[in-house]
């Protein structure tokens, strides 16, 4: 079993690897095609189906499944999609009643998944060694996706967009022009607010809150409000706004120079999975360079492979850098800092 607790030195080495991967590669080579073993293929073919529980947006996951089925059409995938908190409650309750139907559980909040890791079996993809160590919270859970934060703005309304996270504190963007996702909304937002305080400074929240941003319960309604012009500027996950921009929405998106906070999903195969081989085939593919390249190019997600096969459009590996939270530190600070954020932003929990 892989040892997960990292020393500070290992963590720094891991961050250095990430920085190298982000800065050092002048271009991305085409990802090698994923080649499963014949034995796994035969076993998955014999099972022929897969039940996926996910917190990913339904249209995004279905595009991923369509790409998977293009390679492996013999696995029929059923999907059950719920938001993060509801998904965890569903998984826990079904498991306790002995009725967990999932072959794969895919969740955006690694901390919540870590709490129920006993429900999952040991699993590692063939390229396990290629993954950034500090994105691995358990030997059973793997970072299939890694959404990163960007600043998005309505290009019809904003002619002088902010360029940095610190710009979001400027009074010229005040009076409700900025929309913010509330801190307690989930793991991805927690990653961003942790970055803000650790990297941008202890008083960043106070300065930003002084612009009186409008608060939204999650990223999706905020992205919709941004397109409609309800707000003009918003920190948003790139994979929420990039597909809209691709379709022609009046959006500008940029990656601030101070860093791009990137969180990661935690995905695993339950001990009770009925279609273990189909589940392994799916996860092996998603976690392979081929699968990671697909989600990066199509959806704008990052990859926490040490050498990612691609970067989201607009992310310049030479000048931009990503920031991944240290898991243990993240757990330690979570409750107190979240309470602080609620107080500073006047959010009533």
């Amino acid at each position, binding site marked *: 079993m892989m040892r997960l607790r990292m020393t500070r030195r290992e963590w720094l080495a891991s961050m250095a690897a990430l920085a190298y991967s982000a800065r050092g590669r002048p271009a991305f080579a085409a990802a090698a095609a994923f080649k499963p073993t014949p034995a796994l293929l035969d076993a998955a073919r014999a099972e022929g189906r897969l039940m996926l529980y996910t917190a990913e947006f339904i249209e995004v996951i279905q595009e991923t499944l369509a790409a998977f089925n293009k390679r492996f059409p013999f696995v029929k995938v059923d999907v059950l999609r719920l938001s993060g*908190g509801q998904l965890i409650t569903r998984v826990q309750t079904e498991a306790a009643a002995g009725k967990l139907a999932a072959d794969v559980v895919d969740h955006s909040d690694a901390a919540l998944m870590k709490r129920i890791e006993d429900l999952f079996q040991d699993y590692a993809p063939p390229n396990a060694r290629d993954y950034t160590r500090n994105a691995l919270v358990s030997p059973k859970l793997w970072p299939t996706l890694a959404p990163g934060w960007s600043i998005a703005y309505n290009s019809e309304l904003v002619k002088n967009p902010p360029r940095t996270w610190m710009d979001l504190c400027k009074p010229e963007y005040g009076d409700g022009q900025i929309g913010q996702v509330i801190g307690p909304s989930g793991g991805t937002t927690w990653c961003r607010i942790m970055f803000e305080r650790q990297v941008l400074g202890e008083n960043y929240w106070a300065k930003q809150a002084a612009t009186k941003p409008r608060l939204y319960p999650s990223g999706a309604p905020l992205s919709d409000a941004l397109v409609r012009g309800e707000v003009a500027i918003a920190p948003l996950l790139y994979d929420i706004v990039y597909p809209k921009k691709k379709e022609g929405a009046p959006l500008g998106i940029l990656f601030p120079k101070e860093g791009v906070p990137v969180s990661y999903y935690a995905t695993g195969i339950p001990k009770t999975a009925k279609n273990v081989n189909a589940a392994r085939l799916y996860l092996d593919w998603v976690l392979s360079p081929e699968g990671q390249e697909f989600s990066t190019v199509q959806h704008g997600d990052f990859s926490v492979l040490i050498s990612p096969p691609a970067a989201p459009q607009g992310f310049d590996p030479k000048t931009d850098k990503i920031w991944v939270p240290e898991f243990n530190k993240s757990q330690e600070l979570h409750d107190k800092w979240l309470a602080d954020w609620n107080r500073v932003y006047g959010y009533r929990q």
Partner: protein
Amino acid sequence: MNSGVEQGGGGPLVPVAGAEPARRMWGARSGAGSRWLARLWLASLAAILCFLVLYPVGMLLIGALTTANPVVEGYRLADLSIANFAAVTANPNVYSALVNSLAICGGGTALAMMIGLTFAWIVVRTDTPWKAVIAGAGMLPLFVPALVAGVAWSILGSPRTGLLNTFLAGLGIAWRVDFYSMSGMILVFGIYYAPYVYMFTAAALRNMDRSLEESAEICGAGAFRTLTTVTLPLILPAILSSMLLSFTVMLGIYGIPAALGTPANLPLLTTYIYALTVWSPPLYNTAAAVAVILMAVTAVLVYLQQKALSRGSFTTIAGKAVHPRALRLGPWRFFTLGFAIVYLLIVVALPSLALLVASFRRFLFIHSLAALFDARAYSLVNFQRLFENPLTLDSITNSLEVGAMTACCGGVLSFAIGYTVTRTKLQGRSLLDAVSTVPAAIPGLVIGVAYLWAWIGLPGGLYGTLWILALAFVARFIPDTVKAVSSSLMQIHPELEEASWLCGRGVLGTVLGVVLPLARPGVIAGMTLLFTLSIRELGSSLFLFSGSTMVMSVHLLNFFEGGNIGVTAAFSVVQVALLGVLLAGANRLARGQLKGNAVRPV
């Protein structure tokens, strides 16, 4: 024959307080065998309600009294505490949300009552032109999911980008509307739930014996006085029932406050509860405690309603054929037509237009009036994406199937409960009535997890099938259907059943041959309501659907949560069209029945 109305000189016409309600069956005229049969009947209904209502509510209470998931970690009596309640009652945010909820839902209910009742009177009792069309169109808001209604009105009434404000700006008018406010939400709640009041009161008005109003007119009462002293008091059960239903449904609605209240930082209990369930980690136990407080508020309202109803008799259908005659309004019929048209423009045309714009427009950024009419911004792309999704057709099929299952099972159960409560004097029937009202008090967002906690352990293969969804919908909406059916049953005079018995028919024959045909408009209205509510229901579906039983409400939420308002609107348009067709069929069925509403020979 006791008409149920007392007339005294020039004074008001009021329901007779001492009129004997129709509770003469079984217990009153039966031997020992029949008594046992009656007890068995009551016990069966009680057992069904215990399983459907009390067991999940019990799990909800346990959830509120613990800090863990009762299925996952179990519970011991020693672990139960009121810590969640203490935390909730000490939290000023809960009070703020409660006050906002009561004010907004109260205002919305008053408005819904005014609109719905006026509409029912115009459609059923006047000779207003095109009233059939008006009646059909006026029901449309009922079929729009609350989430979509909220979004539609935010598209219209947002202070920054609302279409209404774009129009006002285009006309050079400085005044702006703001639906992100308490008054905005009251208005939307009022017009959105007016069809509930309409459905109940229109059925009562159709069933009412016209001779009662004619008697008042013969005695010199004018049209207004007849309306206020005869008509309205006689349909009071339907008015009160529909108001209570509207209020409790509003208390449990998430979509409208989420779309209109959240941008204004105006929390209601539902948005607060939803936040509790989606925060990381989710706080279901705290949400359960808030839900129990909400249940207490609603319980008080139910008690008040029942107390009000117990003061008089509301029997209006007697052993004589009913031929509702339209009130001749003369030139005033154009005024009522104008009122109806303005109402339909505001309630149906505007939000429908907003939805159509959203569904056909590639993006909803509309910076000027000219941009709204830019044909290049419109396409079928949202509908293409909707139907490219393999889950869309599955969800439609599943929803229709589960809606039909729910309407049939719920209709039968509601009629059985309604009949037992209103037409018999079996001991324990009041308890049956009270228990059947309980789910009305629980917000759907929370009861869903209670159903999951309660029923996941059931033996057999029920979990993961459409039947468990139907079961949850029957349980969740039983108060609504029982109220609809009971309102109709309360209007049927006991003499009709007595005549049937005298002619030798048994209880079952009388119920099927006399009572059911007379109550059929109410039963059909109840079943239609149940079908509609089932198709829209989200809270219970979220925790009980499986990979193969995806339903429309969950699929719609998935699109909404994906931030895709265009596809969300396109799916809403499809749902509204689908439900409109189904409702037209149900309406036709009810109308066909009305023509033969006279008592069949027994």
